[in-house]
C-alpha cells in the first residue's frame, strides 16, 4: 500500500501523474478527525493500491475529480450525502437524490441504528466483585498461568497487602463467586495466591514510596486492619507509627489463628517486609490508653484498630468452675505464650464458629483423644467454613448438633447438662428460630470445657469515642470517621469479629479518608485496562482443564502429632495447570 499526501493546490498534478501511469480509480473514504476531515482517494496501480490523502476543513468545498476520472461521479455523490461535504464542479450532478437521510442530528451523519445500544462488557469478573477488597483475581490468575509469580504478587498487593497470609487463612468469597461451581469445582484462588507468595525468594519488593508529605499518622493496634492502613498510608508518603500491645505484630492472626494454619515465620516475614517497604515504625509492647496524649506528640491523624478481645459469657450456672476455659485465654496461651496446658482426655468445645474449630483442633494436638464440638443449631447454620469443618472431621473431632448447654456441675470430671433443640418457625427475615424440647436433657462428662461462642469489642473509656450497645465504635458509614475529629476506626473494633479480608477492606477505606483529610487524593479506585496481559485463550473444550488440581496436604496420621503446617500448597506445574482452568469471565472474547 503506497501513500501520497497532498493538499488542494497540488491534487490535480498528482491526479494527472496517476492517469499517465494508467491507474484505475477505486473509491473515496472520508474520516472524521474532529475539526477537519481527511479524504482518501484509493487508486489501483498495477497490482498495488495507492492512497492519495488530503486534509480539509469541514466547511470548505472540495473540487470534483470527474474531470480527470469521470467514473468517480458515483463515489463523489455518495460521499457528498454520507459526510455532508461539498464538492463543486461535479460533472454529473444528481442534485442530492442519491441517498436520502432523514432525521440525522448534527453530530451523527446517518440515521442511528434502530434498537438499543450494544451492552457494555463486564468490567470485573464475579470473583473480583465478591472480594471485599476487590483484589484483581482474574489478573493474577492469568499472570500465574503465564509463569509470572512476581507480577501476580504485585497485583495482589495493589489491593490487599498480605498475599502469603491470605493464601493460608482467607475464607475466599471469590471462590463462591466463581462460575465453574455448577458442574465442577470452583477455581482454587486461595492456593494460587499462596503459590504466588511462596514462589518468590524474598517477600521484600523493590518499590518506591511517594514523596514525603511531612504528616504523621498513628495507628493503634497492629492487626490486619492496622497493618493495611499503615502500609498504604506509608506508600502514599505519610510518616506512620504503629503501636501494638503485644510483643509481636499480627493481632488476631497472631493470637487466634493456630500455627498449623499460619506458620509464625511467614507472618513475621510478610508483615516486616511491608513495613520496610512503606517506611513504617513499629513499637511493640506499648499500650495506648489516651488519644490526646498522641495528639500532643504531634500526630495529625489517628487510626484505631484495636480488635475484639473480650470473651462473651454463656450466662449459665457453673460457668466459672475450674476446668472451664475460655477460647480467647486458651488460644492466647497456646499461640502467644507457647504454653501447653493439660486438658485431660475428654474435651467439650461449645460454639460453632472458626474459633471453636481452631480450639478443637488445637486440643487434639495437645493430646486429648476425645474432642467434641457442641453447637446449638444444625450443620447448615454453622458459621465456620466448610473446609475447616471437614479438616476437623478428618482429624477425629466429633460434632454434636442441636444441643445447648444449661448447667455445668463442677467436680472431677465436670458434668455438663445439655438440652436438645429443634428447629422452630421462621421469623420475618426467613431465619428459623431454635426452640428447646422440654424435658429432653442429656449429661456429658468431660475433663475440660472450652467456651467459644464469640468475642465482644471493648474499647478503653479514655479514648472518648462513642460506642454502641454492643461496645463497637460508631463511625460515619462512608469515611469511617469517629465522633472525635481526626480519629478514624475500623476492623473488628468497628464491625465486631469478622475475617481478615474484611478488616483489610476497612483499612483501605480509612486510608482513603485519612489521606484526603491530610490533603492527598486517596487510593485509586479499582479499574480495568483494555488490551492488557494477553494470554493464550482457552474457551474451546479440548484445551480447557475441567478437573481441579488436588491440593497437597499432610497425611492425616502426621497431622495431630505436631503444629506443622497442614496444607502444602502448589508447585509450579500444578499452579500453572490450575490457573489455566480459568474461564476469564472479565475478558470479553
Amino acid at each position, binding site marked *: 500500500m503506497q501513500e501520497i499526501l497532498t493538499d488542494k493546490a497540488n491534487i490535480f498534478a498528482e491526479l494527472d501523474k496517476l492517469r499517465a501511469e494508467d491507474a484505475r480509480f477505486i473509491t473515496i473514504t472520508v474520516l472524521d478527525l474532529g475539526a477537519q476531515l481527511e479524504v482518501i482517494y484509493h487508486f489501483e496501480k498495477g497490482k498495488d493500491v495507492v492512497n492519495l490523502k488530503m486534509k480539509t476543513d469541514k466547511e470548505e468545498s472540495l473540487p470534483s475529480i470527474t474531470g480527470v476520472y469521470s467514473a468517480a461521479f458515483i463515489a463523489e455523490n455518495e460521499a457528498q450525502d454520507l459526510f455532508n461535504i461539498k464538492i463543486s464542479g461535479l460533472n454529473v450532478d444528481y442534485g442530492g437524490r442519491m441517498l436520502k437521510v432523514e432525521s440525522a442530528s448534527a453530530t451523527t451523519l446517518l440515521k442511528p441504528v434502530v434498537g438499543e445500544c450494544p*451492552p457494555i462488557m463486564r468490567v470485573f469478573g464475579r470473583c473480583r466483585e465478591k472480594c471485599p477488597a476487590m483484589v484483581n483475581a482474574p489478573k493474577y490468575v492469568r499472570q500465574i498461568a503465564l509463569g509470572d509469580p512476581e507480577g501476580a504478587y504485585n497485583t495482589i498487593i495493589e489491593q490487599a497487602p498480605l498475599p502469603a497470609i491470605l493464601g493460608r487463612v482467607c475464607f475466599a468469597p471469590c471462590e463462591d463467586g466463581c*462460575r465453574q461451581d455448577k*458442574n465442577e469445582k470452583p477455581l482454587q484462588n486461595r492456593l494460587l495466591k499462596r503459590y504466588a507468595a511462596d514462589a518468590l525468594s524474598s517477600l521484600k519488593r523493590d518499590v518506591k514510596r511517594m514523596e514525603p508529605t511531612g504528616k504523621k499518622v498513628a495507628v493503634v493496634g497492629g492487626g490486619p486492619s492496622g497493618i493495611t492502613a499503615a502500609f498504604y498510608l506509608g506508600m502514599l508518603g505519610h510518616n506512620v507509627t504503629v503501636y501494638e500491645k503485644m510483643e509481636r505484630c499480627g493481632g488476631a492472626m497472631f493470637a487466634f489463628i493456630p500455627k498449623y494454619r499460619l506458620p509464625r515465620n511467614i507472618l513475621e516475614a510478610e508483615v516486616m517486609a511491608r513495613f520496610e517497604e512503606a517506611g513504617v515504625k513499629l513499637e511493640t509492647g506499648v499500650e495506648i490508653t489516651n488519644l490526646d496524649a498522641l495528639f500532643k506528640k504531634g500526630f495529625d491523624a489517628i487510626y484505631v484498630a484495636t480488635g475484639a478481645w473480650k470473651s462473651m459469657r454463656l450466662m449459665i450456672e457453673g460457668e466459672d468452675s475450674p476446668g472451664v476455659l475460655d477460647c480467647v485465654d486458651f488460644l492466647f496461651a497456646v499461640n502467644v505464650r507457647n504454653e501447653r496446658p493439660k486438658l485431660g482426655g475428654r474435651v467439650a468445645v461449645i460454639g460453632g464458629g472458626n474459633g471453636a474449630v481452631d480450639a478443637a483442633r488445637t486440643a487434639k494436638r495437645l493430646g486429648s483423644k476425645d474432642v467434641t464440638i457442641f453447637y446449638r443449631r444444625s450443620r447448615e447454620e454453622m458459621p465456620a467454613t466448610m473446609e475447616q469443618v471437614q479438616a476437623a472431621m478428618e482429624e477425629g473431632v466429633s460434632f454434636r448438633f442441636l444441643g445447648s448447654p444449661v448447667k455445668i456441675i463442677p467436680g472431677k470430671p465436670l458434668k455438663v447438662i445439655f438440652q436438645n433443640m429443634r428447629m422452630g418457625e421462621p421469623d420475618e427475615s426467613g431465619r428459623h428460630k431454635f426452640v428447646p424440647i422440654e424435658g429432653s436433657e442429656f449429661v456429658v462428662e468431660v475433663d475440660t470445657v472450652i467456651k467459644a461462642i464469640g468475642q465482644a469489642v471493648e474499647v478503653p473509656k479514655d479514648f472518648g469515642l462513642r460506642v454502641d450497645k454492643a461496645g463497637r465504635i460508631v463511625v460515619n458509614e462512608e469515611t469511617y470517621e469517629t465522633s472525635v475529629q481526626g480519629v478514624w476506626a475500623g476492623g473488628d473494633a468497628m464491625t465486631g469479629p469478622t475475617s481478615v479480608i474484611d478488616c483489610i477492606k476497612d483499612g483501605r477505606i480509612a486510608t482513603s479518608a485519612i489521606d484526603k483529610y491530610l490533603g492527598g487524593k486517596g487510593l485509586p479506585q479499582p479499574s480495568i485496562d483494555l488490551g492488557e496481559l494477553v494470554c493464550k485463550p482457552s474457551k474451546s473444550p479440548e484445551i480447557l482443564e475441567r478437573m481441579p488440581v488436588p491440593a497437597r496436604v499432610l497425611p492425616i496420621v502426621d497431622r495431630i502429632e505436631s503444629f506443622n503446617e497442614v496444607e502444602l500448597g502448589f508447585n509450579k506445574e500444578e499452579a500453572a495447570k490450575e490457573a489455566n482452568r480459568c474461564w476469564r*469471565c472479565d475478558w470479553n472474547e
Partner: protein
Amino acid sequence: MPKMLTKVLKSLFTKPATVRYPYVKPEPIPGTRGKILFDMKKCDLCQDCERVCPSLAIKVFPDEKRVEYSPFRCLYCHLCVESCMQMAIIPDVVVRAPEFEKIIDIFETERR
C-alpha cells in the same frame, strides 16, 4: 432448439424436483440451525449470550433471574450456543413458525 426439445420431452417423464410441502415434509438435515431453548437448571445468568448476539434477541435480567428470548428477532446464527460455557442453550433443527403477534419467550430460574 432441437437439443432443448429433447430435454423438455425427457423431463416430462422424470420425477419432479419439487417437494409437495406441506403434504410431504422433507427430512431435516442434522446440524441445521433452528430455534433455541434455554435449560435454566444450568444457566448461571452470566450474560455472555447477550453480549455475543448480533441482533440483540436475548435479554438477561440477573437481579430478577429471568432470561427473555424473542424468536422473531433471532437470526438463527447459533453464536450463543457456541459461547455458553455451561452448555445451557439447546439448538433445534426447525425454525419457529410464524405468528400473528410478536411473542417473547420468558425463561425463569429459581437458583441463585
